[in-house]
């Protein structure tokens, strides 16, 4: 693939809009598929985006998600100005959750969001400050194979 300029798509994510949650992930998946990216990489990128999107919808008070497509990698950056994560190590543990019950009733909020993002990405950096917000950056390499 020859991309002189990296392809960047950025989308707004609205707070508590559960009907729209996942739209960005679907769009990114479609875009990657139309670029000829393998089904596995499309799926991994869309899951990372979807979980990050859900986090912004549930916890972040809204924000944005961007996908950058370069020759060798796909980068997802999810940003919000929400309450931040008090203890990132704890939030990375499977099953740890601060989500309210109505989120759990939708099939989310069981403390699998960040672990899933880590599982499906090759690199993950979470920059968060209590009271200021969170920026999550996940990188998926095109030659990283199945995860």
């Amino acid at each position, binding site marked *: 693939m020859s991309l002189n300029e990296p392809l960047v798509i950025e989308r707004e994510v609205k707070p508590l809009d*559960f*009907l729209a*949650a*996942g739209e960005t*992930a*679907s769009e990114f*998946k479609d875009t990657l598929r139309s670029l000829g990216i393998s*089904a596995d990489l499309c*799926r991994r990128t*869309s*899951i990372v985006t*979807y*979980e990050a999107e859900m986090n912004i919808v549930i916890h972040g008070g809204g924000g944005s998600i961007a996908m950058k497509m370069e020759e060798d990698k796909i980068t997802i950056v999810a940003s919000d100005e929400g309450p931040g994560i008090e203890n990132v190590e704890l939030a990375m543990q*499977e099953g740890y959750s601060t989500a309210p019950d109505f989120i759990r009733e*939708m*099939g*989310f909020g*069981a403390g*699998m*969001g960040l*672990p*899933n993002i880590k*599982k499906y990405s090759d690199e993950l950096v979470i920059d968060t400050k209590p009271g200021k917000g969170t920026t999550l950056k996940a990188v998926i390499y095109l030659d990283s194979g199945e995860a």
Partner: protein
Amino acid sequence: MILSDIMALLEAEPLSQKGDFSIDVECAFASDLMSDVLALAQPGSLLITGLVNVQIVRTASMIDMPAVVFVRGKKPPEETIELAGKFGIPFLLTAKTMFETCGLLYQAGIRPCPCSKRWG
């Protein structure tokens, strides 16, 4: 196993006639926790769930799941139906419980989708 045979076995109704009921399904994943579906289910597996919100369709679409079975007599709301139509994912509605649904499908030869190991 062909989706229309699964429908007969589960005494299920299709939500609409849209979608391909001749697809062949070999494995399934049953859960009401979408994050676990995202973490563990493999593409091509049938989704069995008792949740009916719009995120079920999103999840099935992300994992490239060919169809969804709604158990316990649950009927999805309009927005779920609409989105499923957009993605072309067939829905089956059965009054059976999740346990019975899984049992019948297993007996008929459907197997768990290969899951990546969580621990160790």
